[in-house]
C-alpha cells in the first residue's frame, strides 16, 4: 500500500506548491463543515430549551382552563357565570379511572399588604397537589395541606419573590399578610424556593410566572371570597362569576394521556357552545415541538449542506484549473509508466486531502461552538448590554448542544464531497492522451 502513502505525500507536496490557493479551497469546506455543526448545535439548543419548558408542564398532565368567552356569547345584562365548575371537577376527578390525581385552581389578582408595604400579585386557591404538579420546592415551612384545605384555614404560602419584597429581611413564617380588597388576614406558613416561568405554548396557554404568587387553600378562597369578583376599572365596576380557573389532571400512565384527554373533552362538551374552556395536553405540545424541532434542524442542516455544496464546487473548480495547469505533468507521469488509475488516484487523493483538511479543522472549530457562543454572548453583554436586554429570551439563553452524529457525519460528508467533486477533474486528467499532454505548454 506504499503507493497510497506515496500518492498522499505527493498530493500534499502538490497542494503546497500553491499554499494560498489550497488554503482558500480548504476554507470553503471548513466553513461548510463548521456551519453544519454550528447550525445543528444551535438549533438543537433552541429545541431542547423549548422542550424542557414544555416538559416542565408535565407530560402526564391534562390542563383544562377557563377562558373568557367572546363578548357576544355573554348575556347583555347581569353577570353570566362561565368556565369550569366544582361539579365538573368532582366529575372528572372521580369518574375517569385513568386519572391519578386532580387539581382545582382558582386565580385572582389581589393586593397584598404587610405593614406599609403593598404589592400586587396573584392569589391562587389550590390543593396540595399544586405543589407536586408544578415541581415546587419549599424554602421554609410547609405547603398548603389537605387538613388546612378541609378546615378552610386562613393560611397562605408565599413565593420567594413575594416573601422577599413584602418582608425584606424579616422571617415571614407566622406573620400575617393583609388583603385590603377583602379586609382579610392570612398566616404565612411556608415560603417557596424561586422558580422559573413555564413556557407559553401553542398560543393556548400563557406563560406562567410564579414569582408574584400567594397560595391559599381553595376551599378557604371559595368560602371567604366566593365566585363573584368585582373589579373597579376606570370608574365602572366589572364583575365575573367563575368557580374554577383551571383543572389539572394527572394521568397514571403516559400512554393513556390521549385517550383520557378525549374523554375529558367529551365530558365537557357542554362548554362547546360557550367556548369558555380550552384543553391543553402538554404531551401533544411536546410532540408538536419535537416535530417542529426536527423540521427546524432539517432546515438548518439544508442551509449548511448548501454551504458544503458550494465548498465542493470550489474544490472542483480549483481542481479543474489544476488539471489544465498540470497537463504536462500528467503527460510526463503517463510517459513514465503511470496508468490512468494512477492519475485518477493522484487527483482524488488531492481533493480528499483538501476536503479532509477542511473537514477536520471544521470539526475542531465546530466543537468550539458552545464556548464560542457563550463567550460572544458574554462580550456582547459587556459591550452592548442595553441592546442585548432587548433581544429575545432565546438569544440570551440558548445553550448550543452539539449533535453527536454531526461529527462523524461532517467528516464523512467532507470526504464524500472531496471524492465526488474530485471525480470529474480526475477522470478528465486521466483521459488525456499522453502524447498531447506532453506537447502541452
Amino acid at each position, binding site marked *: 500500500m*506504499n*503507493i497510497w502513502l*506515496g500518492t498522499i505525500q*505527493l498530493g500534499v*507536496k*502538490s497542494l*503546497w*506548491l500553491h499554499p494560498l490557493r489550497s488554503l482558500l479551497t480548504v476554507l470553503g469546506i471548513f466553513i461548510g463543515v463548521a456551519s453544519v455543526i454550528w447550525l445543528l448545535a444551535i438549533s438543537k439548543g433552541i429545541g431542547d430549551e423549548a422542550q424542557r419548558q414544555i416538559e416542565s408542564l408535565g407530560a402526564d398532565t391534562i390542563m383544562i382552563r377557563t377562558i373568557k368567552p367572546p363578548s357576544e356569547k355573554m348575556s347583555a345584562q347581569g353577570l353570566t357565570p362561565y368556565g369550569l365548575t366544582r361539579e365538573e371537577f368532582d366529575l372528572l376527578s372521580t369518574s375517569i379511572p385513568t386519572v391519578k390525581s386532580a387539581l382545582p385552581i382558582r386565580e385572582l389578582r389581589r393586593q397584598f399588604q404587610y405593614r406599609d408595604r403593598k404589592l400586587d400579585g396573584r392569589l391562587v386557591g389550590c390543593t396540595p397537589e399544586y405543589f407536586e404538579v408544578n415541581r415546587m420546592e419549599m424554602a421554609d415551612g410547609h405547603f398548603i395541606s389537605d387538613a388546612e384545605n378541609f378546615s378552610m384555614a386562613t393560611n397562605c404560602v408565599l413565593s420567594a419573590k413575594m416573601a422577599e419584597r413584602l418582608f425584606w429581611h424579616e422571617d415571614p413564617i407566622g406573620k400575617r399578610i393583609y388583603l385590603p380588597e377583602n379586609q382579610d388576614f392570612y398566616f404565612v406558613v411556608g415560603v417557596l424556593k424561586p422558580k422559573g416561568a413555564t413556557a407559553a405554548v401553542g398560543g393556548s396557554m400563557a406563560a406562567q410566572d410564579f414569582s408574584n404568587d400567594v397560595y391559599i387553600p381553595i376551599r378557604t378562597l371559595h368560602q371567604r371570597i366566593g365566585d363573584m369578583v368585582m373589579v373597579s376599572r376606570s370608574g365602572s365596576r366589572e364583575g365575573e362569576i367563575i368557580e374554577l380557573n383551571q383543572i389539572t389532571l394527572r394521568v397514571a400512565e403516559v400512554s393513556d394521556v390521549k385517550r383520557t384527554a378525549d374523554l375529558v373533552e367529551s365530558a365537557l362538551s357542554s362548554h362547546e357552545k360557550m367556548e369558555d374552556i380550552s384543553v391543553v395536553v402538554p404531551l401533544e405540545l411536546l410532540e408538536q415541538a419535537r416535530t417542529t424541532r426536527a423540521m427546524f434542524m432539517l432546515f438548518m442542516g439544508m442551509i449548511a449542506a448548501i454551504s458544503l455544496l458550494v465548498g465542493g464546487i470550489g474544490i472542483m473548480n480549483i481542481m479543474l484549473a489544476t488539471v489544465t495547469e498540470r497537463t*504536462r*505533468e500528467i*503527460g*510526463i*507521469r*503517463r*510517459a*513514465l*509508466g*503511470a*496508468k*490512468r*488509475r*494512477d492519475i485518477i488516484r493522484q487527483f482524488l487523493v488531492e481533493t480528499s486531502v483538501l476536503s479532509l483538511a477542511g473537514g477536520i479543522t471544521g470539526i475542531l472549530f465546530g466543537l468550539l461552538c458552545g464556548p464560542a457562543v457563550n463567550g460572544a454572548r458574554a462580550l456582547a453583554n459587556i459591550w452592548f448590554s442595553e441592546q442585548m436586554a432587548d433581544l429575545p429570551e432565546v438569544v440570551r439563553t440558548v445553550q448550543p448542544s452539539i449533535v453527536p452524529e454531526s461529527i462523524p457525519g461532517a467528516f464523512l460528508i467532507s470526504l464524500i464531497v472531496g471524492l465526488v467533486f474530485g471525480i470529474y477533474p480526475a477522470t478528465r486528467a486521466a483521459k488525456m492522451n*499522453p*502524447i498531447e499532454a*506532453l506537447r502541452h505548454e
Partner: protein
Amino acid sequence: MSNPKFETDGFACRVVDMKKEYVLKSETVRALRGVSFDVPEGDYVAIMGPSGSGKSTLLNMLGCLDKPTSGSLWLGSDDVATMNDDQLADIRSQRIGFVFQSYNLIQQLTVVENIQVPLFYQGKSLSKAQQLRSIELARMVGLAERLDHRPTQLSGGQQQRVAIARSLVNDPFFILADEPTGNLDSRTTEEILQLFEKLNNEGRTIILVTHEDEVSKRAKRVVRLKDGRLQWDRQNSQEVREAAAKYAIDNMPVEV
C-alpha cells in the same frame, strides 16, 4: 505472447512493417507506411528526418505512448502492438527510459524523487537497493550534491542530466531520447552527448531522435525517414564519429 518466428534475444527492440494512420475529419493521414528495422542491444541509433516524415509518430510508437495501426513492435519477447493501455504503462515504467527535449521533470519533486518516478509507478515500495541506485545515478550524472534541489533551482543541462538519470533508474531496454539537446547551448549539448557516449560504451542502448546532423553523426547508426518510409539506414564509421566530436569541441565558443 512470445512469437517463435522472431529471435528477440540480443535486440532492444524490433520494428516490423509498422504502419500508422490518423483519421482527421474525412482525411486519412498515413504517418507511417510500413517501417521495419531492428535495434540490437548496445546500439546507438539516431533517427532523422524532416518534419512530416513520421519521425515523431515513430518516436511515440517506440515509446509505447501510442499503438501502430498495423505491424509489430517487439520489446524483448512481447509484441507491444497488441497491448492495452495499462499494459503499455507497465512496459513504459519497466522497459523504456525517456529523455525529452524540455527535460520534463516534475516541479514539486526533488532531484532524487524525480529520478525515482518510474519506480513509483511499478507499484512496489522502494527497496533499499533502489534508493541507493537512484542516488548512485545522481552521482553518475554529477548531481550528487543536489539531491534535494528542485528542478527550478537547476540549469537546463543539469535538468537534462537528472532526466537521463531518471531514464536509467528502471534499467530499461533502451533510452529513448527526443531531441535531448534541442534546448541546450553547444557546450551543454556536448556534455550531454558525451554522457550518452559513455553510457553507450557501458552497453546501454540509445535511440535518439534529432534533426541536427552534428548530433546524428555522433551515433553509431543513422536511420532516416521520409514520407513515412525508411529512406536509408546506415552505420557511422568510427572516423565520422570522432571527427564530429572533434569538430564540436573545436568550434565551441570560447568563454569570455
